[in-house]
C-alpha cells in the first residue's frame, strides 16, 4: 500500500493530463522503457563496435535463435536440471528442516553446518564440487540441489519451530503422535515459510546452475550465453538472457500464486 505525503501528491495531480486513461503514471513507464531502449540503441551504434547487442538487433536475432535446435536443447537441458534440483533439494530440505525445527538436539547438531553453508556464497562451492563430481552435468545438479536445500531447510526449521502453542495443545489433547505433530501440525503451519525458501532457492539455483555451466563447460543456456558472446554473436547471447529472465520472472510470480493457493490465510 503506497502512501504519499500531500506535498508530493499535489503537484503531480496538477500536471496530470486531462484525458482519463492517459495519465502521467501510465505514460511514464512507456516513456522510460522506450527512452532506455533508444539510448541503448543509439549509444551502441554511435560509439561501440558492430557486434555489440542492440534492442533492434536482439529482436532480429530472436527468430533465427529460437528456430535452432540447439536453442531448444539448451533450454530443456538447463530448465530440466534446475527443476530436478529444486524438487530434490526441497524434499530433502523439508525433511531435515522439520526434524531441526521439532527436535532441539538435531537442530544443535546440524546447525553449525547448515548455518555456515547458508552464509557461504555457493558460487564458492562450485570449484570443489567440480573437482569431486567432474566436469559433468551432475555437478550442476549437485549445486542446484544444495542451493535449494539450504534455504528450504532453514526456513522450514524456523517455521516449524515457531508454531502457535495452542495448535500443539489441541493436538496433544486429541492424542497426536509425534508423526502427527510433525507432518499434521508443524508442516502445514510452516508452509508459507517453506514456499519462501523454495522461491529463494529457485533464484539461487538458476544463478548457480549458470555458474557451473560456465566454469565446468557443461552444455546449457548459461554456457550458450557466454559462448555466443565469445563468438561475437552478442544479439543471440542476449536472446538467451531474455529467455532466462522470462523463466525467472515466471517462476517468481508462480511461487507467489502457489503460496496464496497453499496458504490463503497468510498475507505478506
Amino acid at each position: 500500500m503506497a502512501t504519499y505525503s500531500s506535498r508530493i501528491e499535489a503537484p503531480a495531480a496538477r500536471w496530470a493530463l486531462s484525458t482519463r486513461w492517459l495519465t502521467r503514471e501510465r505514460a511514464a513507464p512507456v516513456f522510460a522503457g522506450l527512452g532506455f531502449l533508444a539510448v541503448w540503441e543509439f549509444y551502441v551504434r554511435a560509439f561501440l563496435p558492430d557486434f555489440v547487442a542492440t534492442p533492434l538487433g536482439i529482436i532480429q536475432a530472436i527468430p533465427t535463435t529460437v528456430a535452432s535446435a540447439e536453442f531448444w536443447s539448451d533450454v530443456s537441458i538447463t530448465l530440466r536440471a534446475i527443476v530436478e534440483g529444486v524438487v530434490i533439494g526441497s524434499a530433502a530440505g523439508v525433511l531435515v528442516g522439520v526434524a531441526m525445527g521439532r527436535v532441539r538436539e538435531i537442530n544443535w547438531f546440524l546447525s553449525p553446518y547448515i548455518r555456515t553453508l547458508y552464509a557461504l556464497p555457493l558460487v564458492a562451492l562450485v570449484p570443489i564440487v567440480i573437482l569431486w563430481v567432474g566436469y559433468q552435468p551432475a555437478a550442476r545438479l549437485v549445486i542446484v540441489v544444495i542451493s535449494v536445500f539450504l534455504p528450504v531447510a532453514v526456513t522450514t526449521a524456523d517455521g516449524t519451530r515457531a508454531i502457535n502453542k495452542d495448535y500443539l495443545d489441541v493436538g496433544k489433547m486429541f492424542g497426536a503422535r509425534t508423526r502427527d505433530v510433525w507432518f499434521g501440525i508443524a508442516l502445514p503451519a510452516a508452509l508459507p515459510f517453506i514456499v519462501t525458501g523454495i522461491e529463494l532457492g529457485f533464484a539461487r539455483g538458476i544463478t548457480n546452475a549458470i555458474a557451473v555451466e560456465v566454469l565446468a563447460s557443461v552444455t546449457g543456456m548459461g554456457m550458450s550465453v557466454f559462448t555466443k558472446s565469445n563468438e561475437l554473436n552478442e544479439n543471440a547471447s542476449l536472446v538467451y538472457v531474455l529467455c532466462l529472465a522470462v523463466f525467472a520472472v515466471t517462476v517468481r510470480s508462480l511461487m507467489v500464486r502457489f503460496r496464496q493457493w497453499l496458504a490463503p490465510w497468510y498475507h505478506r
Partner: protein
Amino acid sequence: MAARKESFESRLARFRTVNAWWIRFGCYVLSLLLLFGAWQAFGNSFGVLFVPFTTTMGRLWDMLQNGPLLPGLLVSAKLYGVTLAINIIAGVAIGLALARIKLFSAAFERYIYIIYATPTISLVPFVSVIFGFEFGSRVLVAVLISIFPVLLGTMEGARSIPRQHLDVAAIFGSTEAQLWRDVIVPYVTPFAMSGIKQSIALSMVGTLVAEFFLNPDGVAAVLLQGTTVVDSGWVLAVTIFIAAISVVLVGIGELVERYLVRWRHTAVG
C-alpha cells in the same frame, strides 16, 4: 509410600530441560568432532581428490603465511568495500526516491523488478563487452547482484510510513528538512538496516561472481587456480577460508542490525 513410577518420556523430558546447556554444548562438539573425524578418515582412504582435514588445515596455514591468499583477499576486499558502499548509498537513495516521488516509481518500478529477477550472472558477457573487464565492470556486476535488498527494503519502509505521522508533522508546520529528520529517517532506518544486513552477505556473492566471470581476480582467482591443477587441498583450504569470512560478515550484519534497530519492535511490531 509408593511413588508412581515416572514414565520414561517424562524423565527424558526433564533430563532434556535440566541439562539443556550441556546437551547443546555436547551437540556442537559431537557434530564438529564427527565432521573432522569423518573428513580425516575419508581423506586418508581417498587421498588425491579429498585430502584429510589436517592436511587441509596445514595447507590453509601455509597459504596464509606465504601464499597468494592474503594478497588475493586484499584485492577482493577493495571490490567488496566499494560494492557495499554503493549498495548502501545508492540503494537508500533510489529506494527513498521510489517511495516518495510518484512519477519516478511509476516510470521505473517495474523495470527494477525485472532487473532484480534476471539472473545477473547471465548479463556478465554483455557488461564485459560494453564496459570491459576492469574494476568498474566488476563493481557494476557485484552491485547488480547485491543492491536490491537495500533498495526494496528502504522503499517498502518509506511507503509504510503511517499517514498520521506525516499529517501530524504537517500540522505542526514542519519544514521538509524537519519532516525527513524527525519522521522519515527514524521510521525507515530499521527497514533499510535489514536490507543492509542482507546486502553485507550478498555483496560477498557479488564480489565472487564478478571475480569468477570477469577475468578471474582476487580470492576467486586463487580458488580457480587450485581447480585447474586439480589440487583438492588447495581448493578446500580456500573454500574454508571464504566460508570463515562469510560467517564473520553475516555475524557483523546481525550485530549492526541489532544495534541500530533497538526500537524496531515498537515501530514495526
